[in-house]
């Protein structure tokens, strides 16, 4: 089809696609799926970290964590707006989340069990997210690419803060150091899984690459993440929980073991440690908040009517 060919040529030429322009239905759908999943991840991602705000160990750490979680809600907002440019409303996206049709990043189905987990999420989870997101700043869809620029900047900041939490703790008491190692033990594999299954097993990859929605393979990014993170773990004096981990001089990177993909698919299927609670919390927030949203809407209508009546009278 000529229209599709022209579209592909624009992408190949590195041009950005903008909201009002023609795009193939598959491109639109893929973007909606990906952006809304990303937005949902920001929103659901408030929960595991929010779990420790009331227990943050100092006022400064509490403030930093509050600011971070606030940023995440902000990212959710940009991303929902970006998705809305593709003709879907925020409420529709929520609906898809709440009924289980739309996904969010599986990493948030793991529990935060100690303060070190807050550091580990910043260091590993945000670290992996950045790895995934940096290339998206060059994504072919303009609004998404632009949202990513802003998000990536803040995420890097969060990652440094997370690393700083851990760096402080490993210099602390033996109990604190043990807490950090325990956090790494629990978050390492789930973080590697954030890049998705090995490319052979990944469904949407090829087309997404052609459309420049996706720019690197899952395995490529995972390798990059491991290569970046292992020296940081060494610096912290921690042991990465992978007996197969070994520097490979020839490839200039680490060899490492495979995550437990069975677990990955169980978590995707809803059987992670916190799936029910995360989705339950979001549904409850939405349902309990119905009266609030309806109240605001009713007020807006009344105010509008008063304004109109005032104009008519005036």
């Amino acid at each position, binding site marked *: 089809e000529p229209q599709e060919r022209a579209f592909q040529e624009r992408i190949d030429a590195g041009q950005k696609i903008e909201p009002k322009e023609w795009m193939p239905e598959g491109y639109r759908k893929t973007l909606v799926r990906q952006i809304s999943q990303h937005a949902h991840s920001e929103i659901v991602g408030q929960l595991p970290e929010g779990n420790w705000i009331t227990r943050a160990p100092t006022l400064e750490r509490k403030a930093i964590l509050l600011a971070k979680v606030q940023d995440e809600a902000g990212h959710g907002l940009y991303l929902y707006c970006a998705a809305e440019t593709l003709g879907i409303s925020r409420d529709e996206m929520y609906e898809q989340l709440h009924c289980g049709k739309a996904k969010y990043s599986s990493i948030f189905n793991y529990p935060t069990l100690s*303060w070190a987990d807050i550091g580990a999420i910043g260091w590993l989870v945000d670290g992996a997210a950045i790895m995934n997101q940096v290339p998206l700043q060059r994504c072919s869809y303009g609004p998404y690419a632009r949202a990513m620029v802003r998000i990536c900047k803040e995420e890097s900041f969060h990652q440094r803060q997370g690393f700083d939490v851990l760096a402080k703790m490993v210099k*602390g008491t033996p109990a604190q150091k043990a807490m950090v190692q325990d956090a790494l033990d629990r978050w390492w594999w789930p973080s590697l899984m954030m890049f998705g299954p090995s490319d052979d097993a990944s469904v949407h990859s090829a087309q997404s690459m052609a459309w420049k929605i996706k720019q690197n393979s899952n395995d490529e990014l995972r390798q990059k993440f491991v290569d970046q993170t292992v020296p940081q773990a060494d610096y912290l004096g921690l042991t990465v929980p992978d007996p197969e981990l070994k520097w490979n001089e020839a490839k200039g990177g680490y060899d490492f073991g495979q995550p437990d993909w069975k677990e990955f698919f169980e978590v995707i299927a809803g059987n992670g440690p916190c799936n029910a609670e995360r989705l339950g919390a979001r549904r409850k927030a939405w349902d309990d908040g119905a009266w609030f949203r309806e109240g605001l809407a009713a007020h807006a209508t009344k105010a509008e009517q008063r304004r109109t009546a005032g104009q008519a009278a005036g």
Partner: protein
Amino acid sequence: MSSAPFPTVDQAALFEFLLRMGDNALILGHRLSEWCGHAPALEEDIALANTALDLIGQTQLWLGLAGEMEGKGRTADNLAYLRDATEFRNVLLVERPNGDFGKTLMRQFLFDAWHLSMLQALRSSADKRIADIAEKAAKEVAYHLDRSRDLVIRLGDGTAESHRRMREALDDLWPYTGELFIGDAADEELAAAGLGPAPESLKAEWDGVVGETLTEATLKKPADGYMQRGGKRGVHTEHMGFILAEMQFLQRAYPGATW
């Protein structure tokens, strides 16, 4: 660190006052942060986190100054994390449970309206350190009040359901507002030294703001009946112990650790 005394005022009264300001901010900030990820709209999650963040920042300033003034080497963190309930000086209002979102908003509005008047008065405190903190905090709190007042109006004058919830919230919380305006010896000391306003002096302005807002919200202002009190002198509600058990866990369980 300067520990210059405030020569014209009883040090204990001043310490008391600074704890009250700091503890109000700390405990209300704690309550707000319990909402994290559970608010009825994304914009509200952001706004609550922002308000909590402001309040925790103010806590650092007030408790930091309290510790400095006390001169025993206690930091803001020491004061926040290592006092038990009887040593806290926040009003009972801020420790009330969140309830539904309407109750959280109403609590916020009733407190913000007082908080802003208080901070505005403190900007002309005879002590520059107090005036400086108040200057910074007043800007933040002006925004808090804009927001909470606006939402109280919109929800009071929204649906029958939202009106009912706001009315119940108002009636529930009203008996906890009196404590904001009841002065004691420490307050008198401070007022006499020109360091802060007499609590009673803030009542008229608060009545004005609250009255106008409630009218616009089509909510009936409750009669000033029996008022609950105690927080300012360390006699709290049963909720306080649970707040502290949660908030202080890490500092209590890992004494001497730095974070």
